[in-house]
């Protein structure tokens, strides 16, 4: 992944840019960029987690937004119960404390991933794509029907989570808060794909039958990979709801799963750093083109086609100077 100088330079330069961005934006008085890039960081986190599944596990899931949304709803629901001072199901007290809310969001989305994954992973190929999509849509409609939490209209939060020493309502601090989680997650994922677990997962994605012939039951490895990816998406969802102070079922609509997949493909499947690039390009294009036309996807489509045809390893993969997946 970081096997050549071009990529190393790109990653270092990218990190420096992201770290300096708030200072530069403030200097030039474009505060808007801080919240725009916060959004990019959050989607990047979700896209990197999806890359673990798509690019390394060979598991094409079209239901990744479900975990994104579940993580978001954990934030929303805990906030709701905290402000109503009435415990969830009579036992779970609400909370606005980020140190409680974020881990809960990660945990709950991981639990959803255990359930969905343990059933979906019994299928393969097209069936797996369809069953993950079906689960995600099921959860989507479940939250549409939850009138208590706003149903279709969603739930407004009025404030971000609170945390000692940090003021998350400050956009600059919140930006660094998100950047911190993105860096931690990418670093963890980077180690993970080269670890023993990662080697098994990569082997499974290349030739599952051969892995089983070597004596490894592949199911549990795939499940753990699915759960880690789900937890990462849940964390991203929890951060997004904190940023927008709003959660709705729209977050887990299947088109969001599709958008995450597009980000992974633009940036580079199986590159970990690529999806960050993909997220930035996708959201910047959406933002810029969206100013001129509602139908900005008309321009996104051809770009995606060009990238998939001429740079199968995405924009990040181009840095290696080779085209195919083999580098």
């Amino acid at each position, binding site marked *: 992944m970081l096997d050549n100088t071009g990529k190393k330079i790109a990653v270092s330069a990218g990190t420096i840019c992201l770290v300096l961005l708030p200072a530069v934006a403030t200097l030039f008085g474009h505060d808007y960029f801080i919240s725009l890039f916060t959004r990019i960081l959050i989607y990047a986190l979700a896209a990197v987690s999806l890359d673990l599944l798509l690019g390394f596990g060979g598991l094409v899931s079209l239901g990744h937004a479900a975990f994104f949304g579940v993580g978001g709803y954990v934030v929303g629901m805990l906030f709701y119960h905290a402000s109503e001072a009435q415990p969830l199901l009579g036992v779970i007290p609400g909370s606005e404390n980020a140190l409680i809310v974020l881990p809960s969001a990660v945990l709950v989305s991981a639990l959803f991933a255990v359930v969905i994954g343990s059933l979906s992973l019994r299928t393969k190929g097209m069936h797996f794509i369809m069953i993950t999509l079906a689960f995600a849509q099921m959860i989507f409609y479940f939250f549409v029907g939850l009138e208590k939490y706003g149903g279709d209209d969603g739930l407004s939060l009025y404030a971000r989570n609170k945390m000692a020493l940090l003021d998350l309502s400050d956009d600059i601090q919140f930006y660094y808060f998100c950047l911190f989680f993105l860096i931690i997650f990418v670093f963890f994922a980077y180690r993970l794909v080269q670890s023993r677990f990662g080697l098994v997962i990569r082997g499974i994605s290349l030739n599952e*039958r051969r892995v089983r012939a*070597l004596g490894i039951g592949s199911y549990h490895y795939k499940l753990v990979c699915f759960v880690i990816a789900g937890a990462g998406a849940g964390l991203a969802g929890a951060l997004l709801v904190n940023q927008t102070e709003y959660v709705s079922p729209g977050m887990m609509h299947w088109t969001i799963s599709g958008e995450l997949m597009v980000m992974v493909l633009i940036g580079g499947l199986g590159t970990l750093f690529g999806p960050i690039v993909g997220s930035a390009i996708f959201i910047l294009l959406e933002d810029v083109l969206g100013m001129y036309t509602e139908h900005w996807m008309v321009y996104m489509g051809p770009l995606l086609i060009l990238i998939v045809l001429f740079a199968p390893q995405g924009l990040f993969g181009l840095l290696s100077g080779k085209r195919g997946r083999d580098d």
Partner: protein
Amino acid sequence: MTENLLQVHGLCKSFGAVRANSNFSLSVRSGSVHALIGPNGAGKTTALNQLSGEIVPDSGSILFNGRTITRMKSYNRVKLGIARSFQITSVFESLSVEENMALSIIAKYRNNFKFWQNCLSAPPVLEGLTRALETVGLHERKKIQAGHLSHGEKKQLEVGMTLAGKPKLLMLDEPMAGMGPGGTVEMSKLIRRLKEKTTILLVEHDMEVVFSLADTITVLVSGETLTSGPPEAIRADERVRAAYLGDD
């Protein structure tokens, strides 16, 4: 060491109306090289797939080391010591040679849920990797992506990976397939060396190789065991000649 490591009795397997194996029986002595031959479509690969556990037989029994494994899952059979290589080379093409070998080394450990340490610095890999690569003569090529190896080298890697789990029974599915004369010689040498370490069940088309390597030969015709015996007896058997060798 003369007892039977593998005892197969009356194995039957049909795919719809097609009978791939009927009444397939086989006894493999410990420490021997046992060859399974037969004309195309005789059901050799189906038989092997049942022994490795990828296909569950309709009826019959498989005994390995005195234990019934007829319906055991393939990866659990590997843990008992049955390993196989594939007819179509199936190394992991986009992994490096050393990653391929590392994967086969860690395969026998139950707990590979280690997320942090680089797979190449894991203790069992550090301990076994160099020797495993040297056994199949690929140590110098370890950084190369497996997809870039020559066909012969891939086969060597494949066998090396199968060996990494220190199997009691090694099943080789047409190890010579698609190899030039040089590759065949290399592979024959390798199999001869392996013979001292493990029991080998060899499915092979190349008759010269089979007769020079095998201690015992079983002939499979139309999914059924025709006969079994030492190479000389098989060579002299009229039925075998009629069914198979006569075609040559």
